[in-house]
């Protein structure tokens, strides 16, 4: 009997198929990149000198945020929801209406901006309890960073014809950073919650 001929499989398209697969996986797999909020801690303080180094801050320049052990927020003596914190912080940092209750303004020379009046002395003080959950703490930190980011975006768009902060050159970004300097102070930890628990026992 006559042997039947078997055709050679055309493998030239194999490369294309594997390339497609490769590109598909490359696009769909998310490489594990770390993302987070960057912070610089204040330098350590000598316990002996602790009392001396306490800095007087005018109350109008201070935004005091307390987070209690039930993850509830109090801003300058007023109970507040996290969702409202960003607006409040923006108003505090920029003080657009020159409100006497909000931080005082000072004329500062900044490249690109000339000599605008900005709130150089403002401080946002964040104090949490030992019982505060980490998620609540990060949420508050996040809202504060969001407030700064939005303000920086707004001023960049105004000054550099519609470009956002991320699209600016390094010098321009530095100027914007000077305009709205990030001033979040993490106060020395205090222990209210667990004392209250201790008292209850």
């Amino acid at each position, binding site marked *: 009997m*006559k*042997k039947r*001929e*078997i*055709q*050679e*499989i055309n*493998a*030239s398209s*194999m*490369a294309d198929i*594997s*390339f497609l*697969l*490769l590109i598909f*996986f*490359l696009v769909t*797999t998310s*490489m*594990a*990149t*770390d*993302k*987070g*909020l*960057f*912070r*610089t*801690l*204040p*330098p*350590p303080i000598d316990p002996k000198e602790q009392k001396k180094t306490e800095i007087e801050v005018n109350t109008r320049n201070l935004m005091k945020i307390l987070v209690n*052990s039930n993850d509830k927020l109090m801003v300058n003596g007023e109970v507040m929801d*996290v*969702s409202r914190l*960003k607006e409040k912080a923006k108003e505090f940092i920029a003080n657009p209406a020159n409100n006497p209750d909000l931080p005082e303004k000072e004329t500062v020379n900044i490249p690109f901006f000339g000599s605008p009046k900005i709130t150089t002395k403002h401080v946002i003080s964040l104090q*949490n*309890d*030992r*019982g*505060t*959950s*980490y*998620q609540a*703490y*990060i*949420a508050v*930190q*996040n*809202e504060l*960073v*969001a407030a700064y*980011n939005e303000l920086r975006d707004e001023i960049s768009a105004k000054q550099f014809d519609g470009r956002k902060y991320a699209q600016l050159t390094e010098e321009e970004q530095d100027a914007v950073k000077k305009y709205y300097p990030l001033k979040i102070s*993490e106060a020395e*930890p205090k*222990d209210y919650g*667990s004392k209250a628990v201790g008292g209850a026992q």
Partner: protein
Amino acid sequence: MAKFRKEGGKKLPAISTASLPDIIFMLLFFFMTTTTMKENTMLVDVKLPEATELTKLEQKSLAKYIYIGSPKRELQKLNGSEARVQLDDAFAKKAGDVGVHIAKKRDAMPEADQASMIVSLKVDKDTKMGIVTDVKQELRKAYARKIYYTANERSNSY
């Protein structure tokens, strides 16, 4: 029709394997790029908190990791379910351990990089701030002041 039929070539031709190396290379590259080296065996459960205003950690070689969370289920018999600090492959045993550990890590780095060391805190979102604050205070004392609260991206803001 007969003129289309070839006369010779009745033998079984071998399947070409010329593209096989390419395929294997492709697989290799794929796995090379996507796999991340396991930094540590996790002793604690860490579910990262969520936030929107995140920045990328650019230089991973500068980052040292500290994990905080409650011990994994199989370790809870020995360690309890209270949140613990994990340094490399072990739990921190006493209060000063974090500072010592970070100082050791910093000494192991090239001298030029030591000042720009970043401590990446991977903390479970349900952890209480007390233990996190303690760790932060120790980092301050060890002059490891650049820290990084690792979090996951959240799509919607409030």
